[in-house]
């Protein structure tokens, strides 16, 4: 390639999938900076980042799955299923909590594999398949928790062996630069860096784009489509496990009805971040910024002393705006350059 042929910088910047989200995030940041003095403090930033991180970790996996052309509606309750499993296994069998954690990991990966397997086998849309899993898991979470504990929540595992160690991994608080940072923030950014590397720099990443962009073309040139799809669902399972473990070790106990509705927030974070709902296009920086936007809005409303009831409205408006912006940006980027 000749140097002269490289497109101009603004054009390149505009063709980045996360451009819409970045502009939106800057606007929201400036807004809350202006209206909410307490938003400007470093501690607030740390809170915003914490809020963003748990949503963001799921958002990463959901974004990769979306780039690969599928959704997972069961992702929200799957977080709860994982945490309930770890908690109950450890408590009921009075094991070291790590045993529960490992069983939960196996279960979460299995749920992902089940979703993926059902999808490639039945060729049904992932919306349907995962809607089924979503409802089933929701029911199982409530029913099994009640059957095992006689309650809607699990017993506290605070005093069990290995708890402190596990809490350090999933839910520690670390003092950095004069403020306290939750460890999930570091995990989130670390996972994001890894995911971005995988997506852009490995054959597997190339395959994710391809199966989402045109599954049949991908298959015709030898991409293992089934493997890619199933592994992406399992990746969502892994993220659900991780976030579930965070919640468990942050709160010691788990409500069995939790997580419902969050799957849509994950999808929204990915879409705001410029991932194409129909697959084949997107980035990792996008859902990171998307999740950060969520964190800012949810905390910013509190710092600005607005009625928190407005949160959902804000999210919806942001989703629409970002989607329109992304649509415009993508049109500019993929417009035919020559005839």
């Amino acid at each position, binding site marked *: 390639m000749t140097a002269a042929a490289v497109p101009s910088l603004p054009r390149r910047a505009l063709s980045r999938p996360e451009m819409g989200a970045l502009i939106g995030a800057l606007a929201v940041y400036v807004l809350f900076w202006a209206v909410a003095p307490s938003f400007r403090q470093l501690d607030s930033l740390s809170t915003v980042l914490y809020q963003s991180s748990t949503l963001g970790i799921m958002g990463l996996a959901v974004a990769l799955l979306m780039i690969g052309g599928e959704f997972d509606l069961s992702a929200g309750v799957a977080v709860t299923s994982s945490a309930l499993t770890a908690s109950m296994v450890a408590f009921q069998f009075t094991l070291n909590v790590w045993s529960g954690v490992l069983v939960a990991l196996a279960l979460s990966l299995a749920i992902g594999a089940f979703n993926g397997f059902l999808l490639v086998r039945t060729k049904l849309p992932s919306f349907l398949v995962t809607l089924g899993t979503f409802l089933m898991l929701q029911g199982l979470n409530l029913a099994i928790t009640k059957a095992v504990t006689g309650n809607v929540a699990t017993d506290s595992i605070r005093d069990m062996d290995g708890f402190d160690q596990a809490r350090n991994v999933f839910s520690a608080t670390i003092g950095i630069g004069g403020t306290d940072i939750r460890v999930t923030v570091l995990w989130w950014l670390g996972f994001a860096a890894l995911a971005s590397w995988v997506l852009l720099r490995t054959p597997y990443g190339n*395959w994710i784009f391809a199966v989402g962009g045109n599954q049949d073309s*991908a298959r*015709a*040139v*030898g991409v293992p489509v089934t493997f890619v799809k199933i592994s992406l669902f399992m990746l969502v399972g892994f993220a659900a496990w991780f976030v579930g473990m965070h919640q468990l070790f942050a709160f010691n106990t788990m409500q069995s009805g939790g997580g419902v509705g969050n799957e849509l927030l994950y999808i929204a974070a990915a879409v705001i971040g410029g991932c194409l709902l129909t697959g084949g296009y997107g980035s990792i920086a996008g859902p990171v910024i998307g999740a950060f936007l969520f964190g800012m809005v949810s905390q910013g409303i509190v710092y600005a002393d607005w009625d928190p009831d407005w949160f959902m409205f804000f999210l919806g408006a942001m989703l629409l705006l970002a989607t329109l912006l992304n649509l415009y940006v993508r049109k500019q980027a993929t417009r035919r350059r020559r005839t």
Partner: protein
Amino acid sequence: MTEQAAPLVPLVQLTGIGKSYGTIRALHGVDLAVNAGEVSCVLGDNGAGKSTLIKIVTGLHRHTEGEFRIDGEPVRPSSPREPLARGIAAVYQDLATVTLMPVWRNFWLGSELTRGRGPFKRLDIDRMKRTADEALRAMGIALDDLSQPVGSLSGGQRQSVAIARAVHFGARVLILDEPTAALGVKQSGVVLKYIAAARERGLGVVFITHNPHHAYMVGDHFTVLRLGTVELSAPRAEVTLEELTLHMAGGAELAALKHELARVTGVDTGQLPEANEGSTEGSTSTERK
């Protein structure tokens, strides 16, 4: 890959091939042979079974009747991997490329170059871009930015990228499903040029089209499909463009239609072309090379 096959053994040979989709019989009793350095054209109207035929050859579908041989050896591939490994590459009308992906990523899709090992195995992006550029230029395709999405290329360029890709990956048999269907005259010319270039390189080419003019420009052998069966199979020496066009249009049916129309008042059948003159397009060109 097997060593050089004896000259008389075709690269790909189909004998009495049939395929049913449930109760729909899309193909029945079809013979086709593809030799190195030859362009074998498969013609037929929409729904004639052209795509079905080549999806069998490329391993996307499995035949339900007949025999499929690669280098004389019977095969029943269950995925495109085996045919691909044996040098059969396809460029589909509907799935040539992934439009949102950059040209260089499309070029290497499924055969990515990597460096490093173990968990550090990663795409060798520089080499992928450079080699893709060289391979495209070798086929006469010069693009100034390989990072642009394939969707931003013109239809002819897109097909050409897919063809160059197949040639680069050592295809011995190149299968093209209606590569010119959606293209204008000039763009079609570009694609026909690459088909000729692939033949020059000694590849066997299966060129699927419903345009007899395009077929006749590059074809060495012609097979016309009609409702899933072979209507005509002839080498270039034994068929004229007119005959080809006639068979394509379903000559007998056309004559019957003309007869019907003659009984309807107000239609001047004298203006209609004679069925046995062939061309539905009123073409009078009778030149042959």
